[in-house]
């Protein structure tokens, strides 16, 4: 028994030598250690470790699922993009077709309108020409009239005595050259 050391320790709470080697306290230490180990073991193996293991497994499961879901969504996105591009290309082709059709229609309309306008213009030109001829003829007649009147007036001013019919015959003869 290490009663010396123990008594000294108990009396003044100052250690003599190594308290670790005081065999009288070993039973106490070992007993409480074993109690503690049993308690820790049961708490860990019954409560803590299964719980933590479950959480970790659940997390890795969640991560795997999420990755799979992400992969799936990515493929969906790729498919959607492809569909979008296809639709876009189709729409472009459609639009080009519509534009070409519209152009052709407009061209046809334009051609018809041009032909119609040409015809109208030709008609108008012919009409105008006829009218110009008429006016020209009218003008010649007026010139004859005016010349006759003027000649008659001139003759009478100069003192000649002529009748209208003589003057007009003379003017007509003169105009014919």
């Amino acid at each position, binding site marked *: 028994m290490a009663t010396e050391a123990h008594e000294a320790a108990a009396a003044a709470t100052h250690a003599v030598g190594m308290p670790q080697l005081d065999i009288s306290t070993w039973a*106490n230490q*070992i007993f409480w250690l074993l109690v503690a180990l049993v*308690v820790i073991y049961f708490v860990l193996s019954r409560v803590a470790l299964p719980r933590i293991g479950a959480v970790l497994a659940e997390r890795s499961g969640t991560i795997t699922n999420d990755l799979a879901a992400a992969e799936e969504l990515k493929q969906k996105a790729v498919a959607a993009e492809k569909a979008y591009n296809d639709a876009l290309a189709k729409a472009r082709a459609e639009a080009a077709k519509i534009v070409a059709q519209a152009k052709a229609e407009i061209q046809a309309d334009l051609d018809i309108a041009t032909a119609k306008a040409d015809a109208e213009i030709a008609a108008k030109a012919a009409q105008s020409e006829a009218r110009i001829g008429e006016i020209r003829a009218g003008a010649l007649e007026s010139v004859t009239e005016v010349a006759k009147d003027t000649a008659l007036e001139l003759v009478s001013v100069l003192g000649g005595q002529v009748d209208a019919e003589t003057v007009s015959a003379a003017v007509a003869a003169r105009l014919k050259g």
Partner: protein
Amino acid sequence: MTDVAETGFAIHPMDQFVVSRWFCHDDAGTVINECTADIQWYEITNVTVWIGLTVLAIIALMVFGSRGRAIIPSRVQSVVELIYGFIYKMVEDVTGHDGVKYFPYVMTLFLFILFANLLGLLPMSFTSTSHVAVTVTLALLVFLGVTILGLIRNGIGFLGMFWVSSAPLALRPVLAIIEVISYFVRPVSHSIRLAGNLMAGHAVMKVFAGFASMAVISPVAIGAVTAIYGLELLVAVVQAYVFTILTCVYLKDAVGGAHH
């Protein structure tokens, strides 16, 4: 005692290791008479209190820390998971797949030693793992556990691990003797390493703390205490790790069969 009068220093580095009754002093601090008898195994001592606090700290961390069971862990829960993953991986890597079923026991040892070491670093505390009685018990539990487990699992073939079949035949008996000796020395080195490290570190810390009572050298002494405290923090964790990984290595002999 007489140290103060003689040297002016009040250095009692071993006082921190004294095992004493928890309910033994009256209010004035004087020792009650009936407490001078030997401490019985069932009595509440400072060992009981600090081992109890160790258990409570472990429960607080491992049970209440994991209470949330969150997929995205809180800070405490991630610490718990870190410890779990660390020890689990160690057991799996060292002992192989068969050793995983002893993981709770390895975890128990690791957490107990780690928390006893860390709590022992609190000022005025008691370090249960600095006591040979405690570490020898821990080491013997591992030693006996591994030996019995090995004999149950591998039968007499467990003894084959002492017979080094890869060595030349003439050397095998000699090697067998060395192997047997080294096998039986295991619990000794396993336990003394832990107790010795902690006891030495704590005693040195106390010595330097004692020097701090002298004004001239107190700055140096306090600096030294601070530095050694940091070192002791490292030692506390490293020794828990060393004890645990050695447990795994020994366990491998039992569960992994005789691979020598």
